[in-house]
């Protein structure tokens, strides 16, 4: 009996092995599947070279009072590293001409400079301030930074239909230092791998805010960009709407458009 069993074992292993091979993709772990989704999102967005846009940010407090900021934004894709970007503040009027230059990195701290036009001073600032509010809004600096997949550990959670779109729901845990989040739940639509919604959990793992992307447009037949980002803070009841206009890809920007000299000229 023992002998018979032994002699048959390799055969059984072979049969099971043969069954497993074509099923390998289905047997991937939730982590592998989550990572694969994030990498596909990253891949579909790579090669955009550069982008310029205008942002209108409307801040709304608990009482519903609104205040608006206009920001010019440009970014340069850096292969193998995080993107370079510049934000130029147009309103409120007292900070007109203030501009921020960021060299983002995948896991290393970003390099960041702030230009203060009243003093003509370019100030290197710490990029540790990931979790702080951007311009007094409900967006944190880390929400608006470049979203390379290496910045997070991913885990596929489930499929879900959201706004009529078949979506993947992926949990991601920031791997960079000084994040304000324990985790995020991200909805990617299955067809185009676009961000549909992100739910953020604070350092105590309590529900913090929900960011919803909408009004998507496709640019140069390839790149999807949301025209509207709406973030609602569930703890403070404040919200911010970010509208993107005049989005233009491949405008021919170079690294010279992202240095301390161009920061001083930015308007």
């Amino acid at each position, binding site marked *: 009996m023992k002998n018979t069993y032994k002699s048959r074992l390799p055969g059984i292993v072979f049969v099971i092995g043969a069954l497993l091979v074509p099923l390998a993709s289905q047997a991937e772990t939730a982590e592998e599947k989550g990572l694969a989704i994030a990498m596909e999102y990253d891949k579909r967005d790579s090669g955009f070279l550069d982008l310029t846009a205008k942002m209108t940010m409307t801040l709304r407090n608990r009482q519903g009072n609104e205040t608006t900021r206009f920001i010019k934004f440009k970014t340069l894709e850096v292969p193998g590293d995080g993107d370079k970007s510049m934000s130029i503040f147009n309103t409120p009027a007292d900070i007109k001409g203030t501009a921020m230059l960021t060299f983002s990195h995948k896991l290393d701290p970003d*390099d960041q400079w702030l230009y203060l036009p009243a003093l003509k001073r370019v100030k290197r600032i710490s990029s540790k301030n990931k979790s*702080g509010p951007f311009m007094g809004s409900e967006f944190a600096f880390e929400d608006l930074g470049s979203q390379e997949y290496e910045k997070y550990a991913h885990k596929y959670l489930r499929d879900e239909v959201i706004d009529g779109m078949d979506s993947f729901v992926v949990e991601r845990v920031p791997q960079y230092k000084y994040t304000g989040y324990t985790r995020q739940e991200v909805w990617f639509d299955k067809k185009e791998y676009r961000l549909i919604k992100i739910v953020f959990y604070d350092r105590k793992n309590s529900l913090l805010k929900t960011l919803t992307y909408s009004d998507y447009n496709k640019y140069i037949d390839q790149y999807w960009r949301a025209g509207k980002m709406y973030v609602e803070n569930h703890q403070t009841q404040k919200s911010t709407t970010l509208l993107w206009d005049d989005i233009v890809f491949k405008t021919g920007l*170079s690294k010279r458009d992202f240095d301390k000299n161009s920061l001083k000229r930015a308007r």
Partner: protein
Amino acid sequence: MLKYTLLLLMLFFLNTAIAGEWSGYASVESRYFFKDPLDPRQSDSNISVAFQPEYWNDWDNGRQSFTFIPFIRLDNQDPERSHGDIRELFWIKAANTWELRAGIGKVFWGVAESKHLVDIINQTDLVENNDGEDKLGQPMLNFASIRDWGTVDLFILPGFRERTFPGPEGRLRTIPNIDTSQALYESSSEEKHIDYAVRWSHTLGEWDIGLAHFYGTSREPALLPGTDSSGNPVFIPRYDLINQTSIDIQATLESWLLKLEVIHRTGQGPDINATVAGIEYTFYDIYESGTDLGIVSEYLYDDRVTNPSVHPPVIFQNDIMLGLRIALNDTQSSEALIGMIADLDSDEVFYNIEASRRLGEQWKLNLEYRAFRSSPIKDDHILLDLAYHF
């Protein structure tokens, strides 16, 4: 002034074909001094208004731009403080490896907070504010070569601007006052002496470094005892020709900023060596409130002699600055800087509070409090400034 006006008109007409944009501010400022003045001509308070519009446009895909920023202040007490200036009036051409800027401009060098030691291109508009951060427009031709190994800036500075000082009726001045109408120069070409400067600056990882040399008329004058036309004692400013070499370095190490500024100056009596060295540590987003709290400490050293007719006078020669910087990062951008500078050789302490907050979309309220303890300076004051930005 005439040639500036002509240059202004010329550039202006060149640009009328292209639509530009106007912005700027108008403000009302009031200062109240807590102690009686030392000179009976001075008063306890003053009120003034200022206006600084700004015209800007660009063309050539943003590679060329033109900026014009005139400034005027009217003060009810001190006729010297009622003054105007062309802060900026320049054209920039930017190319891939270089930039050229010509006209009247403003340039900032340095990293420290308590004193801007290496910053030398522009003259200080001291009558505006005793913090030295207001500057007069400087005529310049600036060529910058931008390379992978750093940026080299060359400056030709034709035309010297005399430092502004409060007049006999103004506070925050020396006793006796400084008579700017009798200014003396070492150079026989006086304020027409052409000054030169060169600076190399570069970023190496966490380090931002600047090395510079300046040759020309000292922005700080020595002060000679004299008399004015009515025989009252005054100080007469004397502007020497100097050579000044400087280094400024900042290391940005996560929450820590390490800062160093050093100068070596020759040409004004014995050589002058001075340093500002400091640290800044910031606690970000405290308790997820969005508030940042920064702690700043700087050491100030200056080895000049205390004879104002040899070396321009300085207050801080062996002093420690301690400060707290609070930024609420709220919709109103509320922020405050609370600091003190203590002399290590005496009981003298200087206190400084600066706070600001936006009101609505276009108004900004600024508050400053400055006080001097165990000091011959009796000009403790509070300043409120309300500005409308457009």
